[in-house]
């Protein structure tokens, strides 16, 4: 891809050069459409002026005129050594001529040269080629293993302590005759961690329905509330206990982070749930919730992909699902072959990433330059 973009750039340069050829052989100034953008921008660059080393030299002035216009208008002024300008105010499809002048105190401006270009928007962002390849590769691996699982391949999944504890935690609440609190955090329905949390809720609700253990689900986001209500209702129907479903067990609180925390803390102290689940996206409130819960003596199982909050759950909760474990939970609890298949796909992708890490290290050992070039393949821009 790099070679392609290089070829593309050369072509453009050649085009610009051809335009300037009328004036001089080697172009001192180049102008070309800014790559990978929505349009409306032109990049202008120039060679340093001979006068740059002189003390009186003050910088460059960039001027522009649209085709058909007579006068050049100043669009930018740059400091000595600053040899490029991005014109963000170009109209798509209009041919602009750029003129760069070198300025020196007490002297007349010297024209370095001119160049022309048109701005346009692109249909493919070449800077994101690596992401495209990444998405295609990971999708292919995961879909491949899902299909293999469909065909009945046997799939193993390792023990995840936090999920082993789910049954025990629900059982304990049932024995004690106390409710279970399920907090899906502060994410909205666009947050994948929240969606993972909702799918785990469906599995948990299935079990609380079987045991007829009361379930409390306070919600921070109204759309999450709507979806969770449906999911819990469905879980009760599947368990054959549709009448045990309490419409008010899943409810909206407020969109204020600490208003929500105040209310959930209140629930913990008054309803004294035997088990607290914290699954999904959490921010600073994680420790306030987990410490209050610990004080009431509840078993606490947390799971989040918010790396900054993991330390607090790890210290204050009995079990914590870390990062990817949260996403593996539905597969683990449901043992659905399709889900286990996707988990296997994730592992293969991880293996490939590890291979890249090792390969990069080996390259770095032999040649820093080679290693850096390899690393550049993963660089992300914009």
């Amino acid at each position: 891809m790099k070679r392609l973009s290089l070829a593309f750039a050369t072509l453009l340069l050649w085009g610009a050069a051809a335009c300037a050829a009328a004036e001089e052989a080697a172009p001192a100034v180049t102008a070309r459409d800014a790559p990978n953008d929505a349009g409306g921008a032109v990049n202008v660059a120039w060679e340093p002026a001979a006068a740059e080393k002189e003390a009186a030299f003050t910088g460059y002035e960039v001027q522009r005129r649209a085709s058909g216009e007579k006068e050049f208008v100043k669009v930018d002024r740059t400091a000595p050594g600053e040899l490029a300008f991005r014109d963000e105010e170009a109209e798509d499809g209009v041919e602009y001529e750029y003129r760069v002048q070198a300025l020196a105190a007490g002297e007349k401006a010297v024209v370095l040269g001119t160049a022309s270009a048109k701005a346009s928007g692109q249909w493919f962002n070449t800077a994101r080629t690596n992401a495209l390849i990444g998405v295609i590769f990971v999708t292919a691996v995961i879909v491949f293993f899902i299909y293999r699982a469909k065909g009945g391949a046997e799939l193993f999944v390792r023990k995840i302590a936090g999920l082993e504890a789910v049954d025990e935690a629900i059982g304990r609440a049932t024995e004690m005759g106390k409710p279970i609190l399920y907090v899906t955090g502060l994410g909205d329905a666009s947050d994948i961690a929240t969606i993972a949390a909702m799918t785990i809720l469906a599995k948990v609700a299935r079990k609380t329905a079987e045991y007829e253990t009361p379930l409390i689900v306070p919600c921070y986001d109204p759309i999450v509330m709507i979806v969770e209500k449906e999911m819990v209702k469905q879980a009760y129907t599947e368990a054959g206990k549709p009448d045990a479903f309490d419409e008010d067990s899943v409810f909206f609180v407020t969109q204020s982070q600490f208003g929500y925390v105040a209310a959930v803390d209140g629930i913990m102290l008054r309803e004294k749930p035997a088990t607290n689940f914290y699954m999904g996206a959490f921010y600073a409130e994680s420790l306030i919730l987990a410490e209050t819960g610990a004080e009431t003596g509840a078993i606490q199982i947390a799971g989040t992909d918010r790396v900054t909050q993991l330390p607090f759950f790890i210290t204050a909760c009995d079990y914590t699902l870390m990062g990817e474990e949260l996403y593996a939970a539905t597969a683990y609890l449901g043992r659905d072959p399709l889900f286990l298949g996707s988990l296997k796909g994730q592992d293969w992708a991880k293996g490939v990433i590890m291979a890249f890490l090792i390969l990069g290290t080996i390259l770095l050992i032999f040649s820093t330059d080679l290693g850096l070039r390899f690393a550049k393949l993963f660089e992300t821009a914009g």
Partner: protein
Amino acid sequence: MRRELPLAICFIMGIIMTVQFFIPHAYSQWLFDNMLKWLIIVLTFAMILGILNLIKLHAQKVQHRRRDWLYSIVALFGISASLVTGFGWGIEADSPFMVLYDYVQIPMQATMFSLLAFFIASAAFRTFRARTLEATLLLVAAVVVMLGRVPLESVVGRWLPDLAEWILDYPNMAAKRGIMIGIGLGVISMALKIILGIERSWLGGGD
């Protein structure tokens, strides 16, 4: 209509937004920018449902004189106060709505937030015990970083803050990167299952 159509909509939107990412063109940018705005508009409509749900819950408590019903009156009062001032006088600075925000909501939110200072201390005392090797590493790293961030150079020298910084920059960064790569794969896998309709529990029950 009831199950297939929403799944189809989900599939199509998923593909469109994935492809959009690779197209810098103005149309594509327009779609992305608007998507985020649209999301919050849909959310605001959903909030009508949320607030009605909240009102219903508290009204029921008051009606049936359930435990703590008096406080439900406070909650209902709070909702009406915000809605009446916000729609009655607008939300400019110094409007009744903003006064309510500045002197009622902000102080309570900030106080709730500041409880963390207490809980971080009690959690550290309660749980930072050298029970296992892992627990010991956790507590040692925490203590080093904490001490490294107070002005004690004159007492113990530069090595402590340096060590703290090194832990943050290397072992901590390595762990974070490992977790993040895992999360990235987990999210992509989850999103794929939803787009492809393999994970469809969000539809709920019924037909």
